């Protein structure tokens, strides 16, 4: 009887409601406990920013993603492919305005300040400090410094890859002229002497057809002069500095060896130019097959450091590709892990050496690399280059200037200095006037 009465009580609405709630609870907890896939979005562009052809733009990132997803089972990393390098900046701005920024993204080279000043990028100092697996000292100093904000020094991005600017040498031409390959610590005077020696008319048609250098600009001379062009905060320039003036005079002297003629890129491709400053990515791209055929055919080439001025060093400006984390990402820690996988992890950075034309930003990888992997398959024992030497170039590399009015300032300076070089302007006071003009702009 008792049981029957109890059973009857079971049909009351309150009991049914309780039952329903219990079911709901069970299903909800089951749903909650089910592992959910976290999506991490990455912003990338197709093509190399180093101006060299690249077979598969996404080869490196695909490799990193594959390893990352293997290490993080419930994470899926996605990216929108096919955004061209020239459209990337606009695409990224559009995503930022629409509130759909990828969690992790490559920074367009000119937009670092645009994004840091507007709070779009997450600051990374705290993340880096709290991460026991990461030591910022493992990065080469110049590429890492490039990821810091000029004003506050806060870290907003990590370097993915970088390339130093080096001097390409036509070894065949130098051998023919009986000139030994210059050492790594050569000077402007050495450079000028060789250029004077090789610049001449070989076929006797009255026109010069063998030249010293192509593409060596006054800025290359400034970098190795021992004096920076701009103050670190970008509020003053030093064009009137004697060292800068000496760099300009040196460029002028180099120009004068051409006796009014101009050198074309084709001249270098045809093996008629002894020196050409080039980024290292180009060297690594054109050295091995198949690109080698496209570029140079009939001469051996090598790369050495840029020549230094009397007070300067053989430094190379280092260009860096940066990657940052969106300040709005809901998965900041995961984004940081991925950023680390791209920029820091040893295995990935080793892969970078094979999959990209640029160089890894982490120390200790270039030194351990086989010369063939570093310089391309054509590198042989005749080359004086060693991986250690490249690593030293990276260690001592200089940071390109970056501040709000940089491009305008450099445009003005280039215009005036080109006038000087072409002799249409008297040198007296020209640099002082230039310095004043640029400073006015910088203080605006």
């Amino acid at each position: 009887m008792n049981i029957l009465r109890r059973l009857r009580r079971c049909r009351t609405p309150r009991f049914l409601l309780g039952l329903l709630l219990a079911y709901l609870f069970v299903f909800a907890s089951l749903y909650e406990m089910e592992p959910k896939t976290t999506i991490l979005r990455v912003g990338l562009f197709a093509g190399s920013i180093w101006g060299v052809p690249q077979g598969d733009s996404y080869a490196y990132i695909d490799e990193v993603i594959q390893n990352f997803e293997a290490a993080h089972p419930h994470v899926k990393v996605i990216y929108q492919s096919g955004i061209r390098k020239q459209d990337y900046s606009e695409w990224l701005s559009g995503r930022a305005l629409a509130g759909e920024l990828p969690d992790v993204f490559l920074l367009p080279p000119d937009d670092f300040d645009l994004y840091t000043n507007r709070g779009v990028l997450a600051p990374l100092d705290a993340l880096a400090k709290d991460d026991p697996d990461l030591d910022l000292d493992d990065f080469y100093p110049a590429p890492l410094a490039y990821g810091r904000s000029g004003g506050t020094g806060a870290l907003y991005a990590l370097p993915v890859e970088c390339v130093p600017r080096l001097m390409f040498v036509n070894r065949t031409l130098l051998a023919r002229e009986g000139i030994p390959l210059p050492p790594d610590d050569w000077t402007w005077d050495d450079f000028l002497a060789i250029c004077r020696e090789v610049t001449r008319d070989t076929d006797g048609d009255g026109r010069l057809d063998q030249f010293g250098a192509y593409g060596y600009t006054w800025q290359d001379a400034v970098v190795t002069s021992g004096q920076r062009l701009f103050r670190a905060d970008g509020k003053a320039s030093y064009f009137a500095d004697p060292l800068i003036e000496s760099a300009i005079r040196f460029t002028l002297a180099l120009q004068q060896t051409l006796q009014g003629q101009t050198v074309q890129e084709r001249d270098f491709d045809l093996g008629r130019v002894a020196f050409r400053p080039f980024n290292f990515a180009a060297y690594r791209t054109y050295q091995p097959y198949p690109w080698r055929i496209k570029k140079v055919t009939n001469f051996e080439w090598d790369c050495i450091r840029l020549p230094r001025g009397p007070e300067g060093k053989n430094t190379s400006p280092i260009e860096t590709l940066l990657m940052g984390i969106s300040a709005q990402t809901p998965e900041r820690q995961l984004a940081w892990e991925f950023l680390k996988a791209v920029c820091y992890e040893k295995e990935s950075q080793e892969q970078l050496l094979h999959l990209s034309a640029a160089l890894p930003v982490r120390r200790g990888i270039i030194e351990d690399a086989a010369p063939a992997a570093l310089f391309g398959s054509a590198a042989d024992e005749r080359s004086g280059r060693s991986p250690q030497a490249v690593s030293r170039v990276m260690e001592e590399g200089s940071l390109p200037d970056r501040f709000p009015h940089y491009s305008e300032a450099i445009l003005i300076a280039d215009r005036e200095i080109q006038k000087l070089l072409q002799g249409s302007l008297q040198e007296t006071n020209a640099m002082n006037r230039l310095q004043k003009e640029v400073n006015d702009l910088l203080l605006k």
Partner: protein
Amino acid sequence: MKRTPFQQQRRLAKILDAGELHALHDLLTIYNGMVIVLIAGFMSITQQKIIQTMNAHAFLAQLPSLPLPPAAILFDTIGAFLLLALLGRIYREAALPPLPRYLCLAAEIILCIVIMRSLSLAYDGIVLLVVADLLHRYSGRHQLILLSAAMLGLYAIVDYNIASFTNHLSPFDAYTVYYAAEPRAWIIAIHHGLTSVNLVLFVFYLTLLVRQNHQEKQRVASLNAQLEEANARLRAYALEAESVAETRERNRLAREIHDTLGHALTGIAAGLDATAILMDIAPARAKEQLTKVKDIALRGLKDVRRSVEKLRPDDLEQLPLRQAIERMTKEFSDSTGMKITFEVLAWPQRLRPDQEEVLYRVVQEGMTNARRHGHATHLDITVGARRGIVYLLLADDGCGADITQLKKGFGLRHMQERLALLHGKLRYWSDQGFTLEAILPENEEASTFL
């Protein structure tokens, strides 16, 4: 409860004015809501168009900070505004205790900042709406400080943000740059117009608020004057009533004396006359007559006693002296907080009502003096009786008094006089506090007689 005409008038005026103020505040709220929806919609649509037409990079470069996504601009702003309007209403209308009300206000200020941020500071009129809310319940001491701090804070935020535009266009201008010159001019003109109308509404609201406050003050002043006048009249009336009562009491006393004592004395005089004549003629009759005279005298005495009864203080009338004093001291102690001990060494057995009254008065007067002039916190009252003498001693711990300078104004003279009438004495001295001693002979005869 029935309202006086003043209160009714005041209430009515307040309702009328408050109605106007409320209507204007509602108008201000609705207008701001309209403007905010308009601006948020404009910014949202423009931003969407900028993204679609690939102008995002140039647009972003003109802005000092990253704006919200288009949909968020619209929904965040409208949501925050609705919440703000609701909180404003609660703040103004609901009878909240101070803490929730201040929290309400703080939330309003935060929402105001949220709205301005989500609109990239394109519209700061919302600050005025919050300030209007702040002003609405302007009262109290801290509120003025709070109000000033809140207003300064809000404007500091706005100004700081405007200062950060120095290197950039203001965000709203950056949005208008997207359009061609002519529509752009229109948009800017409309934007300015909207801000100005808001300002006009706000100033109008302020004027009304000030006017209301002013009228309120005037009303209070006039009510005060009326109250003062009523008080004066009341005082005059009280004086008059007192003198009337005194006259009436005098008349009653005169009547009483005439009716009782006069009647009895007349009877006694007449009886004695008759006795004087009868004394020689018929001594037996004279004796009889004297007995009659004695009866008349006794009856007169009874009547006098009854009259005196009527004049005694309430407590004394209802209670024996001892209880009456106990009750009086307790009530005084309860009402003033002074600690009073009442000690009886020996209670006098035979006291006449007039003696009781004098003792009662001395205790009453002494207590009042100790409190009023001596500012005492403790008072010891002792009563003793020995060999036909009654002692009453009051000693307090107050500040005492300079005996030589003491004018017997504190009822002392009065006490002395009343005691003297009963062959008693009053002594007082000041050492640690003030001590009062009353001595009174016990009257055996009268007490047995009566």
